[in-house]
């Protein structure tokens, strides 16, 4: 198997917040009816995680599962564990209408870190950062492209389509320029 390569080769920028393109990160899009009886057990068997509530992301160790829409979840996990996790989902949901697709290489992932990390995103997304709750996964836009973001550690993780990774890195870099902070020191 060839070596996975992240979208921008770990591009980074140090502004008033630190921007890092990370990855490769494993990601599986899971689609099914939320009331599928076998779903919670299948997700638990495949990932060790319970299904998140609406607009939430639950994390244990290096795995997370986020609520993306009423019939869609995003499983985030180490890149090397994708195939095995997909196989476990397929086994547990055999015969049940569902979709579990490896989207790892279709996405780019960024970390925005530092005390003012929220300022970087305030300029790019119509999200009230003050109302973003702990453990909330927010799907929104970053300027002109779709993204999903959540708070994690001392900053945010942001996921977008890989085809717009360069555009998003440009946005984040520009937004984090020293001197363009929004919130008072």
């Amino acid at each position, binding site marked *: 198997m060839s070596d996975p390569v992240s979208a921008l080769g770990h591009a980074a920028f140090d502004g008033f917040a630190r921007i890092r393109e990370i990855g490769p990160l494993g990601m599986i899009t899971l689609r099914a009816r939320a009331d599928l009886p076998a779903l919670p057990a299948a997700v638990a068997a495949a990932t060790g995680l319970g299904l998140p509530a609406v607009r939430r992301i639950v994390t244990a160790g290096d795995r997370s599962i986020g609520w993306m829409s009423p019939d869609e979840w995003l499983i985030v996990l180490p890149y090397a564990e994708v195939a095995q996790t997909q196989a476990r989902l397929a086994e547990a949901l055999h015969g049940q209408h569902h979709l579990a697709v490896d989207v790892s290489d279709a996405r780019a992932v960024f970390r925005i870190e530092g005390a003012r990390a929220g300022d970087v995103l305030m300029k790019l997304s*119509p999200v009230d950062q003050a109302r973003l709750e702990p453990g909330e996964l927010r799907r929104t836009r970053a300027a002109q492209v779709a993204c999903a973001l959540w708070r994690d550690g001392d900053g945010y993780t942001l996921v977008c389509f890989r085809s717009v990774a360069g555009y998003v890195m440009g946005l984040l870099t520009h937004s984090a320029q020293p001197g363009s902070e929004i919130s008072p020191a």
Partner: protein
Amino acid sequence: MLLLTCPCCGIAAEETELAPGGEAHLKRFGPGSSDDEFESYMFARKNPKGVHFERWRHTYGCGKWFLAARCTATLEVFGTYPAQVPAPPPEIIARIKARRPDWSPG
């Protein structure tokens, strides 16, 4: 600026996170319908100044379609509701009547 609360995910979404889908509760006329019915389905819209029922999609959010009742003149939003209904629910009608006593549905 228009803020609509998506009934599918609960986000009070700002207009730029949404895509408009035109008038809601249209009755579809397809193959087998008369030319007049099809023309009306394709082209005739109420386009009122005032209370309007609309389709919206939470494009940059959960991706789902939903319906909204709002005033086209003032941008006042009376409420949003799931797309899987043939007519506005009673609580939406009640909220509109509370704000626009002279308005009547249909």
